[in-house]
C-alpha cells in the first residue's frame, strides 16, 4: 500500500517522531498522551457500548431462564403451586415441601431499582456540571450522592438475602430469583467501585474545565445498570 509521511511529523535530524500533547490542567492523566482526549473518548465510549452489549446477553439469558423454567414447570416445581401435604413434594435437601412457595417481598427490588435509577440521575447531574465547567463541588457533590444511593442499594440487596421467605432449594422460582439477586448485587458492586472513583477523582478536580468525557461514560454505564436492575426487579417481582 502506498505510504507518505504525515504532515505534523518533521524534524531534520532523524530523532524519532513521537509527539506528545501538552499536559492540560485538570485533565486526566496529565502529560504524555499521544492522542487527544477526544480520540481517547471515542474509544472508551465504543468500549462501554460493547461491554453493555455483552452484559445484555447475560441479562437476556437470565430472563430466558426465568420464563423457560416457569413455562416448563418441570415436576410442578416452579413454585410448587400444586404441592399439598398429600402430594409428597420434597425440596432440594429432601425435606417435605408444601407449596406454593411464598413470594418474595416486592419492596426490596423496587427500592433497589429506584436507588439505581436515582444514582444514575445523580451521575447525569455530575456530568452536566462537568460539561458546563462548574466548580469542583458541583461535580463531586452529585458524585457522592450517586455513590451513597448505590451503597444504599447494595445494602438493601444484601439485606434481602436474609429476609427471603424461601431458599435456593425451593424449586425453580426460588433458584432463578436468588440468581437475579446475586447478579444484581454483582453489578451494583461494580457500579459502586466506579462511583467511588468518580467521587474521589471529582473531588480532586479531574472533571472540571470541561473534561467531562469520563463522567459521560460512567453515566452511560450507570444508566445501563439502572436498566438491567429494573428489568430483573420487574420480572422477578411481577411475573412469578
Amino acid at each position: 500500500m502506498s505510504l507518505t509521511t504525515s504532515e505534523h511529523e518533521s524534524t531534520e535530524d532523524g530523532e524519532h517522531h513521537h509527539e506528545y500533547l501538552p499536559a492540560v490542567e485538570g485533565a486526566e492523566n496529565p502529560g504524555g498522551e499521544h492522542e487527544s482526549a477526544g480520540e481517547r473518548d471515542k474509544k472508551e465510549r465504543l468500549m462501554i457500548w460493547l461491554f453493555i452489549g455483552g452484559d445484555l446477553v447475560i441479562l437476556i439469558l437470565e430472563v430466558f431462564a426465568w420464563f423457560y423454567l416457569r413455562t416448563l414447570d418441570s415436576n410442578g416445581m416452579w413454585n410448587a403451586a400444586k404441592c399439598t401435604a398429600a402430594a409428597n413434594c420434597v425440596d432440594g435437601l429432601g425435606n417435605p415441601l408444601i407449596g406454593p412457595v411464598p413470594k418474595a417481598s416486592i419492596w426490596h427490588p423496587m427500592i433497589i431499582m429506584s436507588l439505581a435509577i436515582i444514582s444514575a440521575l445523580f451521575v447525569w447531574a455530575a456530568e452536566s456540571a462537568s460539561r458546563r465547567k462548574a466548580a469542583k463541588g458541583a461535580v463531586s457533590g452529585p458524585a457522592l450522592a450517586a455513590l451513597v444511593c448505590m451503597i444504599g442499594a447494595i445494602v438493601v440487596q444484601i439485606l434481602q438475602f436474609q429476609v427471603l421467605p424461601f431458599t435456593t432449594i425451593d424449586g425453580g422460582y426460588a433458584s432463578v430469583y436468588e440468581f437475579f439477586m446475586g447478579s444484581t448485587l454483582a453489578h451494583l458492586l461494580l457500579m459502586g467501585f466506579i462511583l467511588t472513583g468518580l467521587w474521589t477523582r471529582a473531588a480532586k478536580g479531574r472533571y472540571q474545565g470541561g473534561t467531562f468525557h469520563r463522567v459521560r461514560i460512567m453515566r452511560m454505564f450507570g444508566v445501563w445498570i439502572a436498566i438491567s436492575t429494573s428489568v430483573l426487579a420487574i420480572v422477578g417481582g411481577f411475573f412469578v
Partner: protein
Amino acid sequence: MSIATAPLLLEDTPLGPKAGGLYRRQNALVGLIAGVVLAAIGWVISHALLQGSNWGSDMVVTVTLTCWVIGFNIGIGTFNAPFRWVVGKDSTREDELYGAGVGQGAARYWKYCTDHKVVGTQYFVLVMVLFAIGGTLAMMIRTQLITAHSSFLSPGTYNNIVTIHGMIMIIATIIMVSGPFANFILPIMIGAKDMAFPRLNAMSLWVVVSAVPPLLATFVLGGVDTGWTTYAPLSVQAPPAMDAFAICIITFAGVSVTVAGINTIVTVSTMRAKGMTMSRVPIFAWGSVVSAALGLYAMPAFLTAMSMMITDRATGTSFFVNQLGGAGWLWENVFWTMGHPEVYVILLPGVAALMEIASTFSRKPVFAYKAAVAAFVAIASLAIMVWAHHMFTTGWAPNLATPFMLTTELISIPTGVIFLVLIGTIWKGSIWTRLPMYFLYLFLWNFIIGGVTGIYLSDVPADQFFHGNMFTTAHFHYTLLGGAMIAATGAVCYWFPKMTGRMLNERIGKTAFWFIAIAFQVTYFGQFWEGFQGMPRRIAFYDPIFLRANQMSTVGAYFLMLGWMILLAAIIVSWRNGKIAPANPWHAKSLEWKVQTPVPLENFLVDPVVTSDPYTYGEGVPDGQNEPSAAPEPELVPVGASESSKGEGAS
C-alpha cells in the same frame, strides 16, 4: 530534554528508578505466590466455615479457586491500575513506558507488559503449551482406543481426559489466532501504535494464564466425567472438579475473551492509519473484528451458564435439575447459545489469515474482498441462529427441528463464498509454494470434507444416526483441527519472521507438513469409518466390530503427533538459530511488512498514511506506491539502526 541527548528509539528511553511503581516488583512468579497464598487463605476460611454444611466441598473449591484467580491477578498487577484510578492517582509517562517493557529486556515477557507485541508473543507461547497438554491428552485417548477393551485407563479417568482434552483444545483454538496475531500483527497492519487498551490487553493474557491451573486441578479434584459440554444433570452431580472447571470457564471466557474481543473491535474501529478506510483494511482485520463481535455474544453466555452451574452445585439452586423445577434442556440451550457461535469465533480469524496468505503467495489481490466481508458478517449473523442443531435428538422441541435445519443449511452459503474467495485468489495467480501456502491447500482439502460432513449432520433425520457418533467427532476435528488449526499454522508460518525476526526452517517445516497432512486424513477417516459402523463417541471401551477402524485412527494419530512435534522442533530451532529475517521476506504489501524487524516500540517511527488497500499486486507499480511520483519512498528504518544489530529475536 535537548535534541542531543534524545534517544533514537522509544524503547531506549532511560527511566528513573521508581518508574512503574508497584509493577517493578510484580511478575508471574509473584503472581503464582500471591495466587497460592490467597487460595490457601480462602481455603482455610471457607473450610472452617463451610465444609460441614450442605454442598460444603463445592463451596470450598469454588471459593479457593476464585481466590487463586484473584490472588494471581493481584500478584501479576492486573488490579494496580483500577485501584490507582479509584483513589484518584494517575500514571506518569514514565510509568506507562515501564508498563510497556522499556528497560526490562527479556524479563518483560514474564510481566504485565502492555506492549501488544509482547502480549502477542506471550499468547503464542501459551497457545503452544496448551496444545501440548491437549495433544498429550488426545494421545492418551487414542492409545486407550487401540484395542477394544484396553486396561490403559480406567473409565473414570478416560472420561475426565476426554473432558479436559476437549476444554483445553477449545481454549487453545479460541485464542490461537486472535491471541498471537490479532495482538502482535493486527495493530501494525492497520497502522496503529498499539491496541486501544494496552492494559486490558495484558490483562486478557494473564487472566487466561490464571484460568489454566483450575482446569488442570480437575485431575486431582475427582475429575469431570461429562465431556467438555458438561451436560446437566450429570455435571451437577460431578465431583468438586466441576466447580474448578466452571471457575476456569468464567475466568477465561467470561473475562479474558470478552475483554480481548472488545479491545480488538475498538482498535480496528478507531485506530486505523490516516487514509485507511474500512474498505482498505486488510481482510485479516475484518475476520478478527467479526470474530470478536461474535465472541462478545457467545462468551457472556458461557459465563452465565457456568455461573448457574456453580449455584446449582454449591448453593442448591435447581436450574438444571428436572425433579426440582429445572431442566437439562435449559443447560443445553444456554450452552449451545455459546457453543455454536464459538466455533466460528475459532474459524474466522484463521480463514481471514489464509486469505492474506492466498493473496501474498498468489501475487494477486484477495478475490471478491467485499464478498469475503459479507460472508464473514453473514456467518456471524447466522451463527447465532443455529444453536439447536446440536439438540436435534434431545427431544427438546421437535417443531423447531425444521427451522434450525434451515438456518444451519443456510450457513453453507456464506461458507461457500469463503471457498470462492480463496480459490478465486489462486485462480491464474503466480503460485509461490513457500511453507505458508502449503497450509492453504491443506485447508482447502480438509475444510471441504469438514463442511460437507456438517451438511449430513444438519439433516435432522440423518442426525439421528450421526449424533453422539464418532462421525460427529470426525466432522468437528476436520473443521476445527483440519480447518481452523491448519489455518492458524499457516498464519504462524507466515508471520513468524515478523514476530521472531527469524525465518522458519522450511525444510523441517515442509517435512512436518506432510506428516500432518497425510496422518490427519488417516486418523479422521478412521473415525468416519467408526461412525458409519455405529460407534458412539466418548466411550472408553467398544464393541470389537469397531476394532479395525480404531486401529487405523490410532496409528494415524501417532503419526499426526509426530508431525506436530517436528513442526514444534522447527519453531524452536528457528527461533533460536534461524536465518535472520528481512523486514519483508514475502514481499507483501500490508503495513506490518513495511516496518523493520524487530518492530520498534509503538511500531511506526513515521505515522503512515495510506492511499490504497494492500492488494496492489499486478497493478504495475513498484512495491509501495500507487503511481509514480518524483518523491522517493520515505525510509521507515531509523537512522543509525541496522537490521543485523537487532538479530536476537523480537526487541
